[in-house]
């Protein structure tokens, strides 16, 4: 069985470390906050200008002045601070955020990321994604392995306009976990396989230079 959205998020959460400052994108990335290990100190940043983002509010806690970058109502953590969006992106661009987890349309074997526009369709804008992937220390993409029309999203070269070049360190899909060689000649290494998924399925659904990690049991 391929991983569910929750299982992908749970796997991504295992990349968190005590003391990390993390920025989570919208969608599956948001779910990662549900899987932070008990007792681990992880601080969430929201790029509109908030450090220390708590869970969604109870109905009586909703405050229109407390929203995250997805424009969702959220709450404060115990150590929250607010700052301007300029200061927020100074934090991001300056390399102070340990990890960003975000979604993607395409990821290439050299770590190129496309997640903001499809030529010919209405473009909504890149928001803070370009700043995040360029500035954060480590970038993990969580996404479905193939698009709705069956095309691989893990490619040798992105076909869509880029969000960032050589920026993705790791991709987690329903099929498994992949390390990406963004600094060298490129290449995707399958490090973990979802229970019940075969290496053959991964190979069939991946259009990138793929290596099977030593720890992966070839069924």
């Amino acid at each position, binding site marked *: 069985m391929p991983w569910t959205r929750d299982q992908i998020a749970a796997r991504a959460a295992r990349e968190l470390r005590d003391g990390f400052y993390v920025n989570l994108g919208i969608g599956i990335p948001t779910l990662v906050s549900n899987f932070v290990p008990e007792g681990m100190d992880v601080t969430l940043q*929201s*790029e*509109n*200008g*908030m450090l220390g983002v708590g*869970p*969604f*509010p*109870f*109905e009586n806690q*909703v*405050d*229109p*002045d*407390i*929203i*995250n*970058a*997805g*424009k*969702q*109502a*959220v709450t*404060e953590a115990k150590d929250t601070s*607010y*700052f*301007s*969006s*300029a200061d*927020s*992106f*100074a934090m*991001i*661009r300056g390399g102070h955020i340990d990890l960003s987890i975000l979604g993607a349309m395409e990821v290439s074997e050299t770590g*190129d990321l496309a997640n903001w526009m499809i030529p010919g369709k*209405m*473009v*909504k*804008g*890149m*928001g*803070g*994604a*370009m*700043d995040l992937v*360029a*500035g954060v220390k480590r970038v993990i993409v969580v996404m479905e392995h193939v698009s709705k029309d069956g095309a691989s999203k893990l490619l040798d070269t992105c076909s869509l*306009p*880029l*969000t*960032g*070049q*050589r920026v993705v360190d790791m991709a987690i899909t329903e099929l498994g976990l992949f390390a990406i060689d963004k600094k060298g000649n490129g290449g995707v290494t399958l490090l973990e396989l979802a229970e019940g998924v075969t290496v053959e399925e991964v190979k069939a659904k991946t259009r990138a230079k793929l290596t099977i990690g030593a720890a992966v049991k070839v069924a």
Partner: protein
Amino acid sequence: MATDMANKVYKDAKSALDGLLREGMTIMAGGFGLCGIPENLIVALRDSGVGNLTCISNNAGVDDAGLGLLLVTRQIKRMISSYVGENKTFSQQFLAGELEIEFNPQGTLAERIRAGGAGIPAFFTRTGVGTKVAEGKEVREFDGDKFVMETGLVAEVALVKAWRGDAAGNLVYRKSARNFNPMMATAGKITVAEVEELVPVGSLDPDHIHTPGIYVKRIIEGPSYEKRIEQRTVRKA
């Protein structure tokens, strides 16, 4: 223009914009989504009927709130934004070729505005290198990494929203409603602020003031605030 304290306070949004508006001008408007937007000033801007505006704002509001109000009336010719996904009117006018858009990465937009207010005509950032954003711009290496040159942004008028303010123009923002407001306050040739509460001069702690009064030329206390929430995400008790 007189900038002494007594003269900074205006009675309402309409009078606060009096004499500042002209066709084809560039206006900045604070806020992120509908959070921290200058609600009353935007309505007054809409009611003024001034058109062909270039608006610098992170988003374009929704169809019936924020800058969306100015899209419905077709007062905006061009937007400089980072994300406009919440607005259907925007899509229609854009696809019909009636509206221009310049997308900026959010952090680049924020920094361009900060630079504009700080007298910095250009700076380098790694954001957007190797993407469409860098096309036509200077790309330069520093210490082996590539950076793209971006320019400062200013506006003829900046409209900002704060929580509290005083007659000297000092502003304090509340929580994540701060967002783009502080930089825009510095980057407007004339900055007009609206606040939820106008408090006596001297009642704001000098260490808590986010925008020093020097940046604010006119200030009003808004009669009311809708403060709509776009995504009312709640937990079950």
